[in-house]
């Protein structure tokens, strides 16, 4: 059996492992456009600080799982011929194909947003380019107050330059944090010396011999020697648009992660599938979801029939400027019918969002002890039964699931 996996990110690597575990004879070819492959993408901000930081796997999956790695770019998929057309002209054929191209940075349609001194942060090469560009720069502007923007900002400030984060919404980490959470994290970032400007989109960027001026719609301006655009990501589906494989915002898949074309699967950031809580189609952009999808898609390609229920588009853990946080599910409900419990004390902020008998959102800041118990309740949609009050108190422990009437998947 010939398996082709397009993309060497975590979805592709996990899928390749799953295929190999089930099929010792499989020919597994991985096509990656990146020179460095594979690596831990979440670690690339470290490269901004230190160009030789180790972001590679501790055990190389390419040799361990006997994967043929091709550094090439996919131009299109030919469904009739069952092969993949590569930029080099090669056309490897497949029996089973996995699309795991991940996502690309969103570049907002702002005048002057491309050009020298303006970078995105998605790949090892991106991070190394920023690392090299810091030299001689006094001030950097980061457009976008999401996790990527914040991690870029923290890395840049450790290089000893001034950093400002520009976020068009009213707060940083929207959807991930509520207003109070954003306040706590913003204060921590401010203590590290990072300036944050919220509430105004960028209207225009002008370039003047290496000096970049970022103009906001509010009228204020910021000058910077380096700009990082971190305005989110979108599925990388360019090569598949008119192939006959159904796409929306991402590649559309069914519960086995197979596309409309038999034998062609998709996993990771490139996928558009349902939000576990709302049931609505969405894209993930999260590493742990990509890992799960890769494992399921790879297993199914090799003959299993594992169902993928969907993912939480918010399921993040992080440590920002010394503050640990976990955020999962719905933090700021927009629909009716949610109850919210908050617990705000020095060094510990918690927000829990309930809908009827279920927990749908959890935000832990400062103290993330037992966060996994709450996240599992959300992810597995476990009815709380008599445990709702205990859950709302924030003191739920594993022991509470022993000998309860509806223990769900957490019980022994």
């Amino acid at each position, binding site marked *: 059996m010939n398996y082709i996996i397009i993309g060497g990110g975590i979805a592709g690597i996990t899928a390749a492992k799953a295929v190999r575990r089930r099929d010792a004879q499989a020919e597994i070819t991985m096509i990656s456009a990146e020179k460095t492959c594979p690596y831990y993408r979440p670690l690339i901000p470290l490269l901004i600080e230190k160009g030789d930081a180790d972001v590679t796997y501790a055990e190389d999956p390419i040799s361990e799982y006997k994967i043929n790695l091709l550094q090439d770019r996919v131009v299109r998929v030919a469904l009739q011929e069952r092969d993949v057309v590569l930029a080099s002209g090669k056309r490897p054929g497949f029996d089973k194909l996995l699309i795991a191209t991940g996502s690309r940075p969103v570049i907002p349609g702002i005048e002057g947003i491309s050009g020298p001194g303006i970078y995105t942060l998605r790949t090892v090469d991106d991070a190394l380019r920023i690392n090299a560009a810091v030299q001689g720069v006094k001030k950097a502007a980061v457009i976008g107050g999401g996790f990527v923007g914040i991690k870029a900002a923290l890395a840049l400030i450790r290089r000893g330059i001034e950093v400002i984060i520009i976020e068009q919404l009213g707060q940083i980490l929207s959807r991930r944090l509520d207003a109070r959470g954003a306040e706590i994290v913003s204060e921590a970032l401010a203590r590290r010396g990072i300036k944050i400007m919220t509430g105004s989109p960028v209207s225009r960027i002008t370039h003047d011999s290496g000096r970049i001026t970022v103009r906001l719609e509010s009228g204020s301006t910021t000058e910077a020697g380096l700009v990082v655009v971190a305005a989110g990501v979108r599925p990388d589906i360019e090569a598949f648009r008119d192939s006959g494989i159904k796409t929306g915002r991402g590649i559309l898949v069914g519960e086995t992660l197979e596309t409309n074309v038999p034998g062609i699967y998709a996993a990771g950031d490139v996928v558009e599938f349902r939000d576990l809580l709302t049931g609505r189609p969405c894209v993930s952009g999260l590493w742990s979801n990509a890992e799960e999808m890769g494992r399921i898609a790879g297993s199914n390609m090799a003959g299993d029939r594992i169902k993928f229920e969907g993912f939480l588009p918010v399921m993040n853990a992080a440590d920002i400027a010394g503050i640990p946080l976990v955020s999962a599910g719905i933090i700021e409900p927009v629909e009716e019918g949610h109850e919210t419990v908050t617990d705000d004390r020095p060094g510990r902020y918690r927000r829990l969002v309930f809908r009827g008998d279920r927990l749908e959102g959890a935000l832990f800041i400062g103290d993330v002890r037992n966060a996994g118990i709450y996240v599992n309740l959300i992810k597995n949609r476990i009815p709380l039964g008599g445990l709702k009050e205990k859950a709302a108190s924030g003191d739920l422990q594993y*022991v509470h699931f022993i000998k309860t009437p509806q223990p769900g998947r957490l019980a022994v």
Partner: protein
Amino acid sequence: MKQIFVRPDRCMACKGCETACAVQHSADKTLFSAVLQSPPPMKRLFVEAAEGIRMPVICRHCEDAPCLRACISGCLYRDDHGFVRRRKERCIGCWTCIMLCPFGVITRDREKHIAVKCDRCHRLDVPACVNACPTRALVMAEPEEVAADRRQKAVRAESGG
């Protein structure tokens, strides 16, 4: 292979297992030096109590371990014995493992800024927690033995004998 089994009906919540665990993971591995160590050594298991039940909650070293799968830095790995362990130098303190552990048995080392979890006392035949348990609420046993024992008890209870 023998596994750690928890028998909640025997647990008195004395926390001897917690102490033994912390001592085993201290610099000198003795109680006297462990209590003086600063910062104090950390335990890897937790005695928890709810209405009508007390028990130590320990790492299962899950076959399909969510912490291991989601580790974004290559820190967590499965060793030759099947234990989920850390390559400490690789931990960046992102707390993804804490977010995904359904047992709540991974914690933060605030000094070193890394995740802390049970290493199953991989150098010892009998883990420190099991060794310390005075009521044998924690035991090492073959899963097959435990299953056979449970079946027998169930049959006896049903047949009144």
